[in-house]
C-alpha cells in the first residue's frame, strides 16, 4: 500500500554513486595522478553486491540514463523525493572502494565519496541526509572520517557492510563504535559483502539471487556477534540500524537467543539481561526489501511476533525493485504502526534530523 501521509522518512535511499572523475577534485595530487595513470578513472568501482543492471537493483521505471553526475539529485527528486512526499531521505552511497585491499587508495576514494556526498547531495536538497561511508578494513581511517565529518549534522549515521573481514562485533572495530557513540551517530550495517570469504557458510553460491537472499543470514549472524561480544553493553547509547536486511527473521532470532542465553550466559556474562530486551532497545531494521508473507492473515500474525513497534524503520531502498508504483508499504500494517515506522521510529533513531536546517515548508 501507499504511504497515507506526506512527511515520511526514508531510511535507506541509494543515489547513484559518483564517477571517479567527480571524485578527483577531492583528492591529493598523488592520488589524482595515481588513479588516472592506473586508468582507474575509467572504471566505476561498482560494488558487486549492488550491480546496477541486475533487475533487482534498478526498477524498470527508474532506469533513466543519468548521463552525468549532475543529474543524480534531479533524478532523485523526480523519482523519489517528490512522488513519495518524503520529509527526509537518508542516502547510503554504496561504493566498491571499500573492498579494495590497498587501504591508502581506499581511504583516498572513500574520503572523496564523503566529500562529494556533502557537496553534491546534502548541499543540493534540504530533504537529503547521508551516511558517512567507511571501510571495516581500516578502523583508523573510519574513525578519522567520523571525526572529520561528524560535526556536520546532515550526516546522520556511519555506513558499514554486513560482510567484511571479521564479524562486526569484534573488538578491532570498537574504535569505530566509540567515535560513533561520542558523536551520537548510529551505525548502519548495510547489505553487501567485501567478498573476502564465501557469502554463505556452505561456499560461493552460483547466482546473484542467492547472494541477495543470503544477506539476511549474514545479518542474523552479525546481530548475534554484536550481542555476544558485548557491544551493546560497552556502547550503551549506540543504535545499530540494519539496512536492506529483511525483517521477517527478527522474531525468531530473539527467541533463539533468549534460549541460548540461559544456557551459555556463563561464557558471555556481560549480557546481563534477556537478549530480546537489549536487542529491541538497540537495533532497528529498515523495511525494504520486505520479506514477510503475502497472505494478510499471516502478515498480521508476523507483526504480532515482533515484540515491539519500535524496531522497523521505513525505507524504499530506492532504486531497488521491491514494490510497484508508490506501494512502498506492505499490506496489513495498522495506521498506528505506519505512523511509528514512517515517522516516529526514524525521528527517534536519528536525533540529528532535528538538529540540521529543515526542509522548507516542513513542519515538525
Amino acid at each position: 500500500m501507499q504511504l497515507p501521509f506526506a512527511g515520511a522518512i526514508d531510511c535507506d535511499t541509494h543515489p547513484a554513486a559518483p564517477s571517479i572523475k567527480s571524485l578527483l577534485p577531492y583528492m591529493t595530487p598523488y592520488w589524482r595522478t595515481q588513479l588516472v595513470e592506473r586508468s582507474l578513472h575509467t572504471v566505476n568501482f561498482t560494488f558487486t553486491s549492488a550491480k546496477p543492471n541486475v533487475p533487482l537493483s534498478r526498477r524498470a521505471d527508474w532506469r533513466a540514463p543519468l548521463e552525468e553526475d549532475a543529474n543524480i539529485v534531479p533524478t532523485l527528486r523526480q523519482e523519489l523525493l517528490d512522488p513519495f512526499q518524503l520529509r527526509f531521505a537518508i542516502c547510503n552511497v554504496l561504493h566498491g572502494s571499500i573492498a579494495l585491499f590497498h587501504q591508502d587508495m581506499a581511504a583516498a576514494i572513500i574520503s572523496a565519496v564523503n566529500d562529494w556526498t556533502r557537496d553534491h547531495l546534502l548541499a543540493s536538497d534540504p530533504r537529503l541526509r547521508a551516511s558517512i561511508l567507511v571501510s571495516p578494513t581500516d578502523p583508523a581511517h573510519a574513525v578519522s572520517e567520523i571525526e572529520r565529518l561528524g560535526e556536520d549534522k546532515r550526516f546522520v549515521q556511519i555506513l558499514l557492510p554486513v560482510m567484511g573481514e571479521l564479524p562486526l562485533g569484534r573488538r578491532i572495530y570498537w574504535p569505530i563504535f566509540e567515535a560513533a557513540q561520542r558523536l551520537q551517530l548510529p551505525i548502519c550495517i548495510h547489505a553487501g559483502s567485501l567478498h573476502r570469504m564465501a557469502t554463505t557458510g556452505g561456499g560461493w553460491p552460483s547466482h546473484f539471487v542467492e547472494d541477495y537472499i543470503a544477506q539476511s543470514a549474514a545479518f542474523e549472524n552479525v546481530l548475534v556477534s554484536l550481542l555476544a561480544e558485548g557491544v551493546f553493553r560497552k556502547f550503551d547509547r549506540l543504535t545499530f540500524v540494519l539496512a536492506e536486511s529483511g525483517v521477517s527473521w527478527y522474531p525468531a532470532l530473539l527467541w533463539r537467543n533468549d534460549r541460548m542465553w540461559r544456557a551459555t550466559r556463563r561464557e558471555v556474562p556481560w549480557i546481563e539481561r534477556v537478549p530480546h530486551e537489549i536487542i529491541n532497545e538497540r537495533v532497528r531494521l529498515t523495511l525494504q526489501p520486505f520479506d514477510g508473507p503475502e497472505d494478510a492473515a499471516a502478515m498480521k500474525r508476523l507483526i504480532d511476533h515482533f515484540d515491539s513497534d519500535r524496531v522497523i524503520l521505513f525505507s524504499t531502498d530506492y532504486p531497488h525493485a521491491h514494490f510497484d508504483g508508490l506501494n512502498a508499504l506492505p499490506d496489513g500494517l495498522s495506521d498506528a504502526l505506519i505512523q511509528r515506522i514512517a515517522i516516529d521510529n526514524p525521528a527517534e533513531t536519528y536525533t540529528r534530523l532535528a538538529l540540521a536546517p529543515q526542509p522548507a515548508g516542513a513542519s515538525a
Partner: protein
Amino acid sequence: MTASQVISHIDDFPPNTRKVVEVNGRSVVVFRVEDEFYALLNRCPHEGAELCKGRLGGLVVSSEPGEYDMTQENQFLRCPWHGWEFDIKTGQSYCDPRKTRTPRYDVAVKSGGALQEGPYKAEPIKVSLDDLYVVVHC
C-alpha cells in the same frame, strides 16, 4: 501436607557433598556447603532433568566485556542438560527468577532429643538422643 523427615546422621553427610532422598513422595536433592544445608526438588522445571546430576558452582558476573568475576561460590546449581542456573537458597532461576523456579525446602540440623518432640519420620535411620541429624521439611 508437609512432612518432616530425618535424612541423615550429620556424620554421614560430610561438608560439600549432596544426597538425593525421597521425602513425602518427592525426590529431593540436599546439599551441604560447608555447614549450610539446602534442599531443592530434584527436577528441573524446564525439561525435567535430575538436578542432582548438575554442577554446583559460583555465579559469574561482569562489569564489562572481557571481565569475568566469580561470585557466590557454591551457591548456584546448574542443570545437567541445558545449563540453567538455580540459586540453591531460593530455587529461583538466575535468568528468569520471577517465572522459573524449582521448589526449595527447609533443612535443619536437630539433636536426637529435639526429634523426640516430633512428628518426624526417621525410618530407616536410628535416632540417638545426643547426636545431630539432618532433617528436611517437605
